[in-house]
């Protein structure tokens, strides 16, 4: 077992553990902090997969912007922990769900049959060219990423820009103090 394997197991455990604790924690602030742990570990997994640009985006966009927005809203609304006891039927159904999920994942692992013997699963990266024939080559450089984004995916990029604009206008309209519904009342 070499260092890369150990790092994979470490960060995947951290990602999964953060996710599970996020789902289980009663207080929204601690849930958001566990979520940040999970997102940063996923960024580390992207580094292990040599997608460095996506790892930086993951930290900046998710762990930076999105989770700060979540924490801000949690503190703005002053949401406390979920009150009341968990109902009995919900507990039983949760247990049954976990059990069936465990059986399903054991079956999946048996079925997929991880082939450890064969090491030629990951192709070696080429850094000198961005395109081979008709498709874009995977590369760890941002240059190739931008090349793909501005040639093959030009239209989706523009649509994403418009989506951001529409979301911004929508959020401004939604969070204005006097909605038209309130005026009627």
């Amino acid at each position, binding site marked *: 077992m*070499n260092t*890369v*394997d150990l790092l*994979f197991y470490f960060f*995947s455990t951290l990602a*999964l553990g953060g*996710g*599970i604790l*996020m*789902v289980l924690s009663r207080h929204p602030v601690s*849930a958001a902090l566990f979520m940040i742990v999970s*997102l940063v570990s*996923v960024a580390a*997994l*992207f580094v*292990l*997969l040599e*997608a460095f*640009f996506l790892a930086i*985006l*993951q930290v900046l*966009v*998710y762990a930076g*912007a*999105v989770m700060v*927005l*979540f924490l801000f*809203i949690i503190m*703005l*609304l002053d*949401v406390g922990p*979920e009150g009341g006891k968990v109902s009995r039927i919900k507990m039983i159904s*949760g247990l049954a*769900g976990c059990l069936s999920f465990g059986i399903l*994942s054991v079956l*999946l692992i048996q079925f997929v049959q*991880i082939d450890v013997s*064969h*090491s030629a*699963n*990951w*192709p070696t*990266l080429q850094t000198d060219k961005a395109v081979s024939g008709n*498709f*874009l*080559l*995977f*590369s760890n450089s941002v240059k*190739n*990423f931008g090349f793909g*984004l501005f040639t*093959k*995916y030009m239209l989706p990029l523009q649509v994403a820009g418009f989506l*951001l604009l*529409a*979301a911004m206008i*929508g*959020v401004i309209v*939604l*969070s204005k103090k006097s909605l038209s519904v309130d005026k009627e009342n």
Partner: protein
Amino acid sequence: MESITPQHYLILAFLLFSVGFFGVVLRRNLLLVLMSLELMLNGINVALVSFSRASGNLDGSLFVFFIMTVAATEVAVGLALLVALYKKRKSVFSEDISLLKN
């Protein structure tokens, strides 16, 4: 990169997705439901990047870029809706907003 195969990453992606799915189904706090949706999208991102790396094709990584954009807008709009809802109902729990009228 010797003994970690794409299957390892796929199993991790499946587990992340299902943890997020359980969060969406079981939690009552709508903020946590939104966070669990983010976790599901992250599972998909892990699967896409590992496929992209394993096949040597950049398209999967570019898709992850667009998924991140859509997730960020979704969170922004979802939280704005939640704040508007909170102003009206004074609650963020899903059982308090089960009625369509008022």
